[in-house]
């Protein structure tokens, strides 16, 4: 090349100058565990399915959601959504309305008849599931998707367990449950209904099952000793729920007392209201702060005219009158009698004092029971009997549909490993995406979209669902409110803010962004300006050409 006067070098691009050698820290893309996912008892990847929901791609959102939970339309209605309590967005304005979106996505699936992906191959193994409640259904679904044959035995006339009998219609219409169970059935899970398992060992031998999952729940109503005259009208909450679900509601009378402070007590009081009770009264031994019922359940009940009598124990039942003793809390928070009594006029008393596990079917497996009346399982959800796994209300006092669905998934993964002669090792969890990891500057304030609610006056006379649906506009808006904590949502900040053009953007194939470490100087702007905290600065392992102590 002919050069101008006094010029000796050919022009070059700066690309020959690898400024990456300046770097003391390198940025890396990370996934942190969003607080919603962390708090979900069913182990849902909420941030991931919201990512697709925000694009209006509900099909993909549903596909991602059902990797963990086969029943989103159910869960969106019955779960007490600890995810929303944990949601980082509550530090900005209000939490993302996750349960309403889960319900929306689940209902979309039912509307469009979306079906589960079939297993890629059949394992040839056969697993018995006892009990078609949330734990059993979840275990059956996950095992089936892993390629195993599954047969579910259910004592009742239809699948669903407590979801069918224990949750009132006004919170959870039955056609939703039916649709989600039908979809599991269509995946190839066999159901044997109206068949109570009396001898598990015998059935396992006969049916040549390779493993078993027990999920029969906790169905025996816990009773308290209350001296009562013969004509006192005392029922247990489970039978009220069950008979109401069977369209055979009990006669409760005009004045109803419900004894207990859990969610079931609230449900029964709300049923009593709908059956004509004027002011159902919940009697609870402790205070509002110590009540096990979820705050929202109490709020809904109070809206419907339910009254609560705190710090009170029922001591005696007569025909139309109940004797109540005032209680006080000792320093351990346990209620203690005070000796002060009063009478409450009422026609009936419903006991909602919790449920116990029914062990009667487990002849020969008696040793499974632990001191709390629960089934003993190890960290692999396996009982002391090899190949016998258990989950749901049988093994835990959490007693929620969500926990049961989570148990079913966890047990299925462990059973799958067991059937292959391996031990299931869960993937290591990422560090938490706490609010401090975010750069909130980039998120604008947007009010939460809430579901329409049935007027309290109308609720007294109908079993119609209290909470309505989000419409499509609001579903889209609400899913876009997700901050995507700890995970990239492709805002292009790293790509646009790099002063060294050291971030490559290639949409469509694999990761959207990649660092060009040949040029990245490690300034850290990308990590500082990442809204969701999905970039971490990691110290470089500096290698010095001249070894030895440098003084």
């Amino acid at each position, binding site marked *: 090349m002919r050069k101008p006067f006094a010029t000796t070098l050919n022009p070059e691009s700066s690309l020959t100058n690898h400024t990456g050698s300046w770097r003391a820290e390198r940025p890396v893309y990370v996934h942190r565990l969003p607080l919603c996912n962390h708090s979900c008892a069913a182990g849902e990847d909420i941030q991931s399915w919201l990512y697709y929901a925000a*694009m209006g791609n509900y099909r993909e959102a549903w596909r991602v959601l059902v990797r963990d939970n086969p029943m989103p339309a159910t869960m969106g209605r019955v779960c007490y959504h600890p995810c929303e309590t944990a949601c980082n967005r509550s530090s900005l304005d209000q939490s993302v309305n996750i349960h309403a979106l889960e319900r929306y996505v689940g209902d979309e699936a039912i509307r469009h008849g979306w079906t589960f992906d079939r297993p890629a191959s059949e394992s040839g193994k056969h697993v018995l599931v006892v009990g078609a409640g949330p734990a059993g259904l979840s275990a059956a679904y996950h095992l089936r998707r892993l390629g195993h044959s599954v047969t579910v035995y259910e004592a009742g006339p239809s699948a669903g367990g407590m979801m069918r009998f224990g949750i009132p219609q006004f919170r959870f219409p039955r056609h939703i449950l039916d649709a989600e169970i039908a979809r599991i059935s269509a995946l190839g899970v066999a159901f044997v209904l109206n068949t109570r398992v009396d001898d598990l060992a015998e059935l396992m031998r006969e049916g040549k099952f390779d493993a078993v999952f027990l999920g029969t729940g906790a169905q025996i109503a816990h009773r308290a000793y209350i001296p009562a005259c013969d004509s006192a009208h005392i029922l247990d909450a489970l039978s009220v729920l069950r008979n109401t679900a069977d369209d055979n509601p009990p006669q409760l009378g005009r004045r109803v007392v419900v004894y207990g402070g859990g969610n079931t007590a609230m449900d029964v009081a709300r049923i009593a209201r709908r059956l004509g009770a004027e002011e159902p009264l919940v009697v609870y031994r402790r205070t509002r702060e110590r009540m096990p019922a979820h705050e929202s359940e109490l709020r809904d009940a109070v809206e419907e005219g339910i009254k609560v009598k705190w710090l009170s124990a029922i001591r005696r039942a007569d025909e139309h009158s109940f004797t109540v003793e005032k209680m006080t809390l000792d320093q351990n928070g346990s209620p203690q009698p005070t000796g002060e009594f009063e009478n409450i006029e009422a026609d009936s008393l419903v006991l909602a004092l919790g449920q116990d596990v029914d062990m009667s079917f487990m002849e020969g497996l008696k040793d499974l029971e632990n001191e709390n009346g629960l089934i003993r399982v190890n960290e692999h959800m396996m009982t002391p009997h090899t190949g016998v796994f258990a989950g749901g209300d049988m093994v835990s006092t959490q007693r929620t549909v969500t926990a049961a669905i989570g148990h079913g998934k966890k047990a299925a993964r462990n059973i799958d490993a067991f059937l292959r002669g391996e031990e299931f090792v869960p993937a290591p969890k990422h560090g938490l995406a706490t609010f401090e990891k975010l750069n909130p500057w*980039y998120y604008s304030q947007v009010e939460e979209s809430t579901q329409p609610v049935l007027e309290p006056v109308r609720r007294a006379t109908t079993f119609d669902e209290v909470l309505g649906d989000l419409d499509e506009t609001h579903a889209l808006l609400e899913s876009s409110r997700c901050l995507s904590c700890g995970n990239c949502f492709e805002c292009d900040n790293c790509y646009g803010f790099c002063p060294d053009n050291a971030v490559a953007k290639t949409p469509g194939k694999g990761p959207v962004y990649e660092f060009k470490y040949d040029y990245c100087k490690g300034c850290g702007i990308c990590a*500082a300006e990442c809204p969701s905290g999905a970039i971490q600065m990691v110290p470089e392992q500096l290698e010095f050409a001249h070894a030895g102590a440098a003084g």
Partner: protein
Amino acid sequence: MTNRIDAFCQAGALTVGNRLLTPSMISTQANEYRNNSLTSGHRACRGCGEALAARWAIDTAMRAAGGQIVVANATGCLEVFSTPYPESAWRIPWIHSVFGNTPAVATGVAAAMKVKGKTGIRVIAQGGDGGTTDIGLGCLSGMFERNDDVLYICYDNEAYMNTGVQRSSATPPMARTATTPTLGSSRGSSPDIGKSVPLIAMAHQIPFVATASLAHLADLESKISRAVAIRGARYVHIHSPCPLGWGTESNQTILLARLAVQSGLFPLFEAKDGEVADRTTIGPRVPVEDYLKIQKRFRHLFRPQRNDEALAAYQAIADYNIRRFGL
């Protein structure tokens, strides 16, 4: 995917890109096919605000002018780190000039293009605050006064950083520089407000004057695009934080730009024919202290003891800007 107003619920309006918008709606900097006019391998310090501002501005100009631009560059950091002989990080037609004559060089290029009938080619001059507010101000004023068809972009990092952080007329009040040390009775640069070249440009009644910030990409791109389309003399002043000269962490560059705007110290506005035509309101205000205290050049305002009088005077500057521009 449709264009949705709720797309801004996730990313807000201040991120570079947004996956929920169509490609035509996103910024130039979010586009995977952006020009990268100032590409990798340049020798700017880690976290250089000026390098980033230059890529943003020139990429935008390239897009707005359909790739038909010529850039004249003043001596200064920007030239030294981008073009050490024989390398260059520029991927555009680019011409070197000396420290003070860039507006004149650009005027000459524009005249040449006119003579050759290449009126589609847009001419840009760029430099730092030293080359613009001090050394080149005479040539710049001439360019304004003749209304030459040039867009002048000043990357303001508030001192002569390349030669070792000497004070310029754009250095803010009370800042420590190599020539305004905080020794003995000397308390950093003059406490007076100093020189505002955007206001001087407005006094020439040129068609377009604007200020821009690294914290407001969409605003910056909009101003550069519109400036490129206008004929006559135009001036855009971009606040460009400098980790070296300001004594800040390299990852604080965007944060500093943001705090300067949010405190009112760096007002974002634009003017047409000498009159303020628009400004960016700042919403929740940040005290100037938040901006000052993370910079070592203002450390003497806080240590060994807090200088309340100086901080109040600083806050008054921000308050004045907020009143004056209706921020």
